[in-house]
Structure formats: C-alpha cells, structure tokens
C-alpha cells in the first residue's frame, strides 16, 4: 500500500464506497408488490400460524365457551369453519370431509434436534414437563419457531416420545405409543385442521382447566424456524394450557385415560 493510499481518511474511503454503490452491477430487483398483496389476500381467509395474540384468560374462556356451544351444535351439520385458539395451538374445524391430508406422519427428523431428555431444561431454557405416569421418554427433540420477524425472536418446542407398551398401543406409522409436545409462550405456532365429518372433537377439562380433545386422522401444521411443516396425525389428541405452556399429548388412549395421563404432566425437575 502506498503512503498516499494508506493516508486516505475513513471519510474519503467512505465517499469512494458510496460512489461504488452506483457502479456495481446489482441484480435487477423483481417486482414483488403484486405477489406480496396476493399472498396477504389469500392468507387473510385462513388462520395465521405465527400470530402473537392477547392471551387473556377471560378472552380464552369466552372463546372456548363459544366453541363448546358451537361444537354441541356442530357434528356433520357444521356449515362454516370453526376456529378455536388454545395457547400455542389453533384448531380449525372445516365443514365436510378433508380434501388433501398430508401423506405422512412426522418423521423423527421433522421434530427438530434430537437431545437427551435430561438436557432439555438447559437447552430449552425452561423446565421441560413429562407425564409422571409414563416414566422417562425414549426420545426427545427440541426445535424453535420464529415468532417475531422484527426481533427474530423464537419460541421453543420440546417433543418427547415413549415406545409402545401393553398399555400404549403404537400410533400407526409412528413407531411410538405416545408423543408429548410442550410449546413455550403465547404465540400460535401450531395448527390442527379437523373435518366436521371425519373427526370427533370436543371441549374437556385437564386439571380443571379448559382443554380440547379430538380423535381421527387429521392434519397438524408446525412452525419450524420460519417455515410451516404439514404432518398427518393418526392418534387421539388432548391439548391444554398450564403454567404458560401449551401441551399436546397424542396417543391411542381413550378420552378419559388420555386426560388422566395429561393430568400427571409435571416439570422434569420435580420427577427426580
């Protein structure tokens, strides 16, 4: 480097870089305005997956009461879609039969990074919870969903699975007998799409709190990073909220047995 060049001030180099901005052969900018507004118009009719919401207990209670009343009237006669919000999971019940279910259940690699369950608390940054009645899980995964594009904030999901046993029949296609998903925070990062004609569903109670129960094959959408994954679900599912988390327990257990199992869920640290 010459003395003259090395003598350029920051301001002088900055001026040259600014000039350079005009001289660079930038890739041509695509016209995205129409595509963006078309996407928004398409999506406005559908539930948004990443939807930070007011998580007011009274609002939730009202929604669930309305949902319960509608569900009592629903069955095959449901004429319009029904949307229920339960913590991190949104449930949408569509009239009629499903038109396009995903072809496969979630594979292990779809559930995030596999971890040792004993490390879950440290990795997740919150106390992972497990059903005491089942003992230690066979496998555990952790994943994050982008929930705020502005700050790039994420919400964490811990998934645990148990092998089939005499009491826990294998969920078809999964190789496991039970799957528990624990979602952090109030952001809606999962959605279930049910069909009024092919799924049974209803409001139940877990530890005295409102919960949602469904049976029958349906679609589960999970936000992973900033993408949405679609998975087929063959098990029975109970969803409930507790201590700032949303839990989703899938198995082939009947409603009462599944609720009893859900009510044994407690933080891993309390399980010793």
């Amino acid at each position: 480097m010459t003395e003259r060049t090395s003598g350029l001030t920051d301001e002088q180099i900055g001026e040259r870089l600014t000039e350079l901005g005009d001289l660079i052969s930038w890739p041509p900018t695509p016209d995205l305005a129409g595509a963006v507004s078309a996407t928004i118009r398409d999506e406005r009719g559908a539930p948004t997956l990443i939807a930070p919401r007011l998580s007011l207990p009274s609002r939730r209670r009202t929604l669930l009461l309305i949902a319960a009343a509608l569900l009592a009237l629903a069955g095959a006669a449901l004429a319009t879609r029904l949307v229920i919000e339960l913590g991190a999971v949104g449930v949408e019940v569509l009239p009629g039969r499903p038109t396009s279910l995903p072809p496969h259940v979630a594979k292990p690699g779809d559930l995030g990074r596999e971890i040792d369950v004993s490390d879950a608390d440290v990795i997740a940054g919150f106390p992972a919870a497990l059903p005491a009645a089942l003992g230690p899980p066979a496998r555990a995964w952790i994943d994050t969903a982008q929930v705020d594009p502005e700050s790039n904030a994420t919400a964490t999901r811990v998934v645990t699975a148990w092998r089939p046993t005499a009491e826990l029949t294998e969920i078809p296609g999964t190789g496991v007998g039970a799957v528990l998903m624990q979602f952090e925070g109030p952001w809606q990062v999962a959605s279930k799409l049910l069909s009024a004609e092919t799924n049974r569903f209803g409001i139940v109670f877990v530890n005295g709190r409102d919960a949602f129960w469904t049976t029958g094959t349906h679609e589960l959408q999970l936000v992973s990073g900033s993408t949405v994954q679609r998975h087929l679900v063959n098990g029975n599912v109970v969803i409930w909220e507790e201590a700032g988390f949303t839990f989703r327990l899938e198995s082939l257990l009947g409603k009462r047995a599944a609720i009893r199992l859900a009510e044994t869920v407690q933080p891993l640290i309390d399980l010793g």
Partner: protein
Amino acid sequence: MTGDDVNDPRPVEGRPSEDVDAVARARDGDVGAFEALVARYQGVAFRVAWLVVRNRGEAEDAVQDAFVKAYYALPRFRPGAPFRPWILRIVANEARNRSRSARRRDGLAMRVAASEPGQVMPSPEGAVLDRTEAEALVLALERLPERDRHVLALRYLLELSEAETAEVLGVRPGTVKSRLSRALARLRAEVPNSASFAEVDER
C-alpha cells in the same frame, strides 16, 4: 447503475409522511396501501437481502416473506416510527435465516458494471473512481469478513444512515460506528498497492 430494476432504490431516504399514512391504512386492513409500501421499498429491501444471501432466488423469497410477515406484524409497529428501517430489519432477519441454508451463492456477486478497462465511469460530479479503482475496491470488499462487508455495504453502498444500519443489523448506533471504523481499517489494508488508487489522492 446497471440492471433493469423496476424500482431504483435511490434515493433511499424514505418518505416518512407518506409512509405514516400508508402504514395507518394498511393496519386497518388496506392491502393496497401496503402494496404501495412494498413498491416503494422493495428495491432497497432486495439489495439488503441479496447482500446477505448472495443468491437472487433466495433474496427474492426472503423479501417477499419479509413483507408478508411485516404486514401481519403491523399491529405492533409503533405509529409514527420510520417504516424503512423497520422493514429492512425484518428483511435482514429473514435473509439471515435463509443464508444459513442457502444452497448456492452467487460467485463474485459484486461486479463493477462492464466498461472499457481504464475508462472513467459515468458518475456524479466530483466522482473520483475509475473502473480499475472500483474493481480494486470490490475485490477488497469481497475479501473482508462477512460482518465487515455487511456494515460497509449497508452504510455506504446502500447509503443507509448509521441509525438505519444499526436497526438492520440489530445493534446499537455506537456499535455501528466502531464496526465501521474497524471495517474501514481492514478495507484500507486490503486495497491493493494500486498506482491508480494512489493517483486518486492527487486529484
């Protein structure tokens, strides 16, 4: 500048009063108002995304997804705040998320617009760079670590203010100052021992 851009991103100062009105209408559900904001800022947004991912397709997807996410995030946008740095930050975040998995990156992505060797580029009054010098600067920029290259590109090539650069990078303005200072020092060291560059000082 070359390329058949549908939106020349310069000037990139933003149009605060028009933005405030468009943002307010978009928050009320006026997608057309938001479309106008996309049209206004897609040029600079695309360049920010491209600088991060270095892949046209990925940059296009990142910008489109970022604007859609921004639309749904409008209820949390502070009324009256400048829209441009806010959207550019979302774009940069989206691009960074994609850059981790980007399949193919454009090679020497910054190329000085083609012209005869040694030809003085048509540029604004008072311009001092000729093609050789510009190419030397590009090569030097490309050799810098990504963090240095990003801060220099945002601040100078795209002419964002320090505050906007800070917003896009998700750091404090003071951090931008210090990063710029270090990046300029490294760039100065990377610029080849070029006679033509030395001549620049004599003009």
